[in-house]
Structures are given as structure tokens and as C-alpha cells.
């Protein structure tokens, strides 16, 4: 129970499921975007959890730690992955909110629905 991987895993799974529940039950675009954000956070947490190793140290080269002791370092790559995916998530959320505002301007509502007879351009 005290294993952080377990806690992280539970947390990640819970976040993803809450997000999925939100996506499945809401029509409101703002809530959809929030739910998707939750799912993304969940999956980021999952990456961190999946690459956790017990008893390793931060991979920072210094006086104490050097290349010879590299075996006791944590893998730095997942951090890079998570950082990248957080940045991408930010971009997606920003664009989605911008689109939402434009949608609101056009239709006067935030509900996602399909209109078939809308005007189209070339």
C-alpha cells in the first residue's frame, strides 16, 4: 500500500476515468475540455508512475554523483516525455478554448450539437 507506484497508478487511473466519465456525459464544450484536461493529467501521472524505480536518485551530475555511479540514477527520459506532453496539452487546451469562444460567438450556445444545414464556404 505504501508503494508510491501503486498510489500513483490508482490516482492516474482514477483521473482518467473521471475524465472519461466527463467526456461521455457532457455536451457542454467547456466541460468536455476540462474532462479531456483531467484525462491528460491522469496519463502524465501514469507515465511517471510507470517509470518509477525505488531507491534511485535524481540524475544530476555533480561532485558526489558521476558517470561511474550511473546505475543508481533514475531514468531521466520519462520526465522529458511528461514535460513534452504537458506542453502539448497546454497547446491543445488553449486552442480548444479559442475554438470554444468562436463557437459561442457563432451559435450562442456552448452545447455541442450537429446542424446539417449550416452555410459552408468554398
Amino acid at each position: 500500500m505504501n508503494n508510491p507506484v501503486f498510489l500513483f497508478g490508482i490516482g492516474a487511473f482514477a483521473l482518467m476515468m473521471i475524465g472519461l466519465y466527463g467526456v461521455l456525459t457532457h455536451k457542454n464544450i467547456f466541460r468536455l475540455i476540462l474532462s479531456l484536461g483531467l484525462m491528460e493529467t491522469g496519463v502524465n501521472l501514469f507515465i511517471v508512475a510507470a517509470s518509477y524505480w525505488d531507491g534511485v536518485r535524481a540524475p544530476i551530475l555533480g561532485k558526489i554523483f558521476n558517470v561511474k555511479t550511473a546505475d543508481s540514477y533514475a531514468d531521466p527520459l520519462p520526465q522529458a516525455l511528461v514535460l513534452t506532453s504537458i506542453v502539448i496539452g497546454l497547446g491543445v487546451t488553449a486552442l480548444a478554448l479559442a475554438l470554444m469562444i468562436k463557437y459561442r460567438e457563432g451559435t450562442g450556445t456552448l452545447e455541442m450539437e450537429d446542424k446539417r444545414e449550416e452555410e459552408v464556404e468554398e
Partner: protein
Amino acid sequence: MTSNMLPFIVIAPVLLGLLMLSMPKRLNWWIFFLLNIVLAGVIFTLKSKGAMSFTFQWTLFGTGKVVQKLGVTPLGWFFLAISSAATLLFSMFSLDFNDKKHSTAIAPLWLMLVGATNGIFLSQDWISFFISWELMSWTSLFIIGHGKTSSFKAGIYYYALSFFGTMAMMAGIWLLFHRTGSWEISSGVLKTAQDLSSHRGFALTVLSLFTVAFLAKSALFPFHMWPQMAHAEAPDDFSAYLSGIMIKYGVYGLLLFIVPVFALTPRGTIKSISGVPWPMYILAVMSALTSVIGTVMAIFTNDMKKLMAWSTVANVGYIGVGLATGTSLGYAAAMFHTVNHMMFKGGIFASLAAVKYRTGEREMHRLGGLAYVMPITFFTFLLGIIAAAGIPPLSGFNSKWMIFQALFEKKMVFVATALFFASTGAFLYLFRGLHTIFLGQLSPRFRNVKEAPPLMSLSMIVLMILMLAAGIFPGLVTGRFNDILVAAGLNPIKTTLYSMTGSTTSINSTLVASVFALAVGVVFFLFVIGGRKRRVKMMDNYTCGEDPLDWNVGPDRYHYGYDFYQPIKGLFSWMPLGVVEKGYNALGRFMERLGNLVTSISADGTRLGWSFVLGVILIIVIGVVK
């Protein structure tokens, strides 16, 4: 004339057709006519040069090595010759038909279609065959549609069935290729014949895939409902081509692939019913069913073009029965009926086109008495329906006689009975057409109608002469069959210029025709020297002095041709006639519903997420179950 002529007669029409898309209409019809003269000339000189072929090789990774081979086989040449001759006549007809008022822009596409037709009859490999077949399909779709919304509805019905068949053929071609390792048609025939004993399931799959394609094209059951739409809605001059030539591609395919396979299979390899291998027996029953359905539907139709389209369906049924017997006689009979049908149905559709050209009417009960003003058209129609009904001095009798002889030989009682029924029914609908359109009283509206223009009349006259010739001297046509029969692995038939020999007896058509001519001469003589004659005006009779308008019945409704066979309609009410069509419509509706269901997933935001979840579940289910 070298073998280089073979690609020429396929490719030149297609390229010229493309070029004609940018030319004025009137010029196009002349080019169409002139090129058809050239093509017919080339095709008729091909035969004297003996066997020739043109091969063209290429290799693609996907298809492997392909040897495209155009060649003249006896069967191919026969179909090529009759189709090019008929096309020439129809193009002459079209030349006058497409004046300012009736013109359509179909000449370029029609020319491409002619090229595709030549390709089909010359192909010795499945790739060329398939390419020509598809080219023929879509060009004819656009011709039938010819820019009219209602016509296109008929055309797309035809095309959907035809494309379904084409897809089946694609599957069949590949199965055959994987089995034989070559695209050649002849090696496919040999291999399938061997497979009938060793790999029966496989051979039957291949045969049924090809049969679907050919049945769909020839409008045999269960694809019998497209001609009544497509023939009726096509441009009037094109209907003759559609019914005369295009409906025969499937017949050609059956003669090319299906019949030889069973001819090469030794007796006893496959179970037979009354001496016919059971798949062929099924084909015979389906063809007989086609002719019964065609006949019954024709009896109840008021539209003259639809009536003749149903008659075409019935006649293709006869042809199918003939070739399904698998004997030399049946094969010859099928080919003979193909030629005859091409001539008499071409003549009938030409005369109907001429009637429509002059009167603008298609419903029979609005017409009447046109024999007085359009005698040549009348005689073409008359001879056409005499031939179609199978009455002696004309060609239809000869081929029907042969078909029945082939059936007697195999003792196929059930099929023969069905065909007798269809033949009798043919009298009902054909003479109704004659009576309603050409005989009776001339409506005052049509008093000033003139005979069809000269070129139209000329082509009709030629068709009449051909029908008479084939009727009086059957040997003119049947004499050509023995090469074809031998090439297909069958025994030759006994025939002379004047007579035909069946399984039970032989008949001298020339003698029959002479007797018939004598009888007609005597009757005509009696008519001439007989008593006084008086012409009856249209409004003189029927109504016993009452004015029908008092009962809200216009002149159309009290025309005796309207719903002529209403009384006997009840006799056939038990037949589930529209059931196949209803099935197709239900399938179409089901697909529309499925499409609406799929597209409605995006109707709101919640379903987007659900669709994703559904997809994940679907992946798991398929992944675990299979």
C-alpha cells in the same frame, strides 16, 4: 488487314469518342456512322484471314506478368460480326433520328461503348475482358441517363446490378488466376473443367461468381427487372442497341466460359438431372423462370417500350434455356436465337423509336391506326413481332424450334412446359402491341403524321430483309455455327441452307415459308376480289351513342388498348412477381438506415466519446473472439 487491326477496332472508337466530346452534335453522329462502316468493313474481312491474334505484354508487381491478347475466335468473330452489322444499321437509324428536336449528346459515349463491345468479343485474357467490360458498364450508364433525372434513376438501377456482377467477376478472375497462374481465358476453362472433379467446391465457386456477372448483364433471374426501366428510359434510338446487342454480353460470357467448362467435363463427374449437369439444370430453370416472368409482366404493361423490354427479358430466358442444355443443338439454338433476337428486337425498337419520333407518344393506348400513315414502320413491327412470336416464315420460329428440339432431346419437361407457357403468352402481348399502336382507327390527332425519314426507313427495311432471309434460309446463319461448336468442344450440327435437323425430326423452313406465302397470297387475292369495304372512323363505334365524357372517361381510357388484359390479370395474382425487386429495395433502404445511423453518431458531443469507447470495445471483441 494485319493483326494490328485488332487493337485498332477496340482503341480507335474509344479515342475518337473522347475526341468527339468537344465536337458539335450533328458532326458527331456522322462520324459515328462513318466509323461504324469502317469497323464493320474491317471486321468482315477479319474472318477470311483465319486465326490471328495481337498480344501485348507487361508486368506489374501486383498482377504479375500479363499477356493481353486480342484474338479472333469463331465465337468471338460471330458475335463481333453480328454486333457490328447491327450497330451499323442502328447508327444509320440514329443519323436521321437525332435531328434538332430529338437530338441527344450520346454519340461520343456510344462510340466508346462500341469500342468496348469489340474489346469484349476479342479479348482472349481476363484483364482485357475486364477492362472492356467495365468501360462498357459506365459508358452505357451515362448513355441511359443522358442528362435526364428520371432516366438516370433507371440507369443507376441497371448499373448497380451490373457493377455487383462485375465485382463478382473480379473475385472470380482472381480465384482463377491463383489457380492457373495465367490470365488466359482458355486455360481457365480447362482448369475449371478439371477442378470440377478434383476441387469441386472451388470450381463451383468460380463458376457461380462468373455466372452472377453474366446473369446480371443479361437480365436473367434474379436480375430481370432492370431492362424494363433501362430500355424504357434510354434514348429511343439507343434502346434498340441496348436490347439488341448489350443484353447479349452475358450470353456471350456464358457461351465463352460456363458452357465449355461443362462440355469439357466428362460425363458422370458431376450429378446430372435428366442428362444435364445440375448447375446447368438450375441455370435452365432460372432462365425458364425469367421467360415466364418476362411474359407475364409484358402482358400487363401499357408502356410500349416497357412491354418490349419485358419481351426482351423473356427472350433472353429462351436463350439461357438453350445454352443450359449443354448440347450442340442447344448451343446452336441459343446462338441462333441471339441473332434473331438482335434482328427482330432491333427492328421492333427501331419502329417504336420511329413512332415516338413522329408522335411523341409512349403509352400505347394513346396511339392507334398508325399503319395507314407509317407503312414501313408498321411492316417492320409486324415482321418483328411475327418473328418474336415464333411464327413460321420468320426467323424466330426457326430458333425457337431448335430450342424446343434441344429440350426434347434432354427430356426437360418442366422447363419445356414453362417455355410453352411463355411462348403462348408472347402472342398475347405482341399482338396487343401491334393492334394498339398500328391497327384500329387512326386518331384524328395523328392524321398528319408522316412516314419515318429516309435513313430510318432504310435501316428498318434492311432489318426486315434480314429477318425474312434468316427465316426462309436458316442455313445462312446456322451454317456458321459448326466452327464455333467444334471450338467449344461440341459436335457439329446437321444443317443445310434450307433445313434444320433437330433431335426428333428435321424441318425445311424454305418449304414452310413457300406454303405460307402461297396461303397469304390466296387470302390477299380473295380480299381484293371480295365485297365492298368501308372505312370506320375512330369515333364511330364503341360508345353506342353515349358520350363517354359524361362519365368522366376521356378518349384515352376508352381506347380498347388500355389495360387490355385486365380480366386475366387475376389469373396471375398469385405469382409473387415483385418479390425480387422488393428485396433489392429493402436492401437499399437498409443501407440508407445504416448510413443514417452511422452519421448520426456525431449528432451531439456526448456521442463522440461514446463512439470512441464503442470502438475500443469492438477491437477487444474482434481480437478475442476470432
